[in-house]
């Protein structure tokens, strides 16, 4: 009985650790994913449509950059502790 409880407790900790690791991976890699998406991959054909005198794909790139800046501000503000691995001691 005691062993079972210990086993469940260890499994719970392991599951929690995995959750933290996955969350950290997602948080740390999200800037790279966002930067990939900010490249205007889907603009292929030349178009004469302009906005404020500039082509649409350029607007897309600027919008991507603005979104990235907001994303970084949010990540730094809200997920700093995840990157800092604050749940761990200062051993490597």
């Amino acid at each position: 009985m005691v062993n079972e409880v210990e086993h469940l407790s260890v499994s719970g900790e392991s599951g929690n650790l995995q959750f933290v690791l996955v969350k950290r991976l997602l948080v740390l890699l999200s800037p790279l994913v966002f930067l990939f998406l900010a490249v205007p991959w889907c603009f292929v054909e030349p178009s004469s449509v302009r906005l404020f005198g500039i082509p649409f794909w350029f607007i897309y790139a600027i919008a991507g950059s603005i979104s990235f800046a907001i994303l970084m501000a949010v990540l730094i503000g809200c997920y700093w502790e995840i990157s800092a691995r604050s749940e761990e001691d200062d051993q490597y």
Partner: protein
Amino acid sequence: MISTNNFIGNSSGYALGTGGLTFIGLYVLALIGIGWLGHRAKKENTLDDHYLGGRSFGFGVLFLTLYATQYSGNSFMGFVGKAYRDGFPTIYTVGAMMAVIGGYFIFAPRLYRLSNRRRFITLGDFVQDRFSFRPLTIFIVLLGIFGLGNYVLTNLLALGKLAEVVSDGRVNFNIAVIVLALVMLIYETMGGMRSVAWTDVTQGIILLLSLGFIAFALFFHLGGPAGVAEGLEAARPDIWHPPILEQKITWLSSILLFFFGISMYPHAIQRIYAARDERTLKRSLQLMAFMPLFTTFFLVLLGVMAISIIPGLGKEESDRTTLLMVGKLVQELPALAIMGPLLVAAVIAATMSTIDSALLAISSLVTNDLYRIYYPEANNSELTRVGKSTSIIIMILVVMLTIALQGQTIWRLLEIKLEVLAQIAPAVMLGIQCKKIKARSIFFGVIAGTLIAVYLTMGANPRPYGIHAGIWGLGMNFLTIFITQFGINIGRTGTPAEER
């Protein structure tokens, strides 16, 4: 009193008049004064105080020193010139400069805490503390010194070219490089990081004021891109098309190069250590994420709009687009004549703030990570003295190289530096985030990555399939790390399955 005739027409574009040159001269002299104030504020004769300003930088100083250091003469001259040559696709530089903050986010939060507890001074301190493998530390320190040396070189080249143009040849390239290098050496050796950061504050403010002027002139005077669209269409119909696939791949590759390369600048890492507290660092990085929108974006627009306003510039001339455009704008807007010298001062400021920071970082790497290994008994006073001597020797060497290499284009040199610096990224990022990563994996990885990056850079095609040599090197770097790590795990436990 500065005359309204600060800009005069000349054969190669526009140059400062006597009033404008006096303004620049006074500005440069003022930097020595700020350096002296930094020297007076010095609290103790230690490496910590000399290279990190006593870890006391508040939000204003930290943000402006990060800003002034990240945006250099290359940004003002190189980015604008590239935008003039390549047109709208140069907008990738905005995302690329932002990507640097993404790179910081991976390691800065934990690195700051570790540096505070373990009193790191340089990047080498972290690498040695994390991996305890001296060959790796020395290799990374040497890569850092190479990258920074190149950085100083490109920026001194930009300074020399700038001085020649704005003085209409009255100030010789060699004289300008020597005099400005001397000024930087004086204030840097006087007060170390504190002097450098305080001059950065002045430089950062001048940069922001000048960018405000550029933005005003571009949008209110010239009517933005829409105002010059017709001329732009006639001069360069090709720049309106979306980039082709290879260009898009190069776009992504450049962003990755900035993400992994610029975030590894040893002098930027030292600024992370120098923050007064974590909140200060967080707020500074948050604001830095938005700065490319107010800096790089306007510079790219300036370059693109220049295509229509000053068509027909050659490759080398295009590196002077900023000055040519400012000269033209000031002529058309006499009320803003004072902004001409201010903008020239901004470009000089951006360049000097980058050089002095890089020079200080090289000095710290040599003193703390190389000299101290062989002379562990050296006291703080001796180490500080060695650091100052190192700055002088390196500056002399770089000035000599700069004078010898005047013919190179700025952009290419910038890329060679990042190709190599990016190879440090796995050591720092994986070292911070992965507990299990071993020194040998990182060591073999960084060697393999550097060899690939250098080999491809020196070869006929430095961008196979549109991807930079540094990114190929980084790919090899990561691959080697994972293979070696896998091998180490098998060696230790039999098979990975048994370990599980």
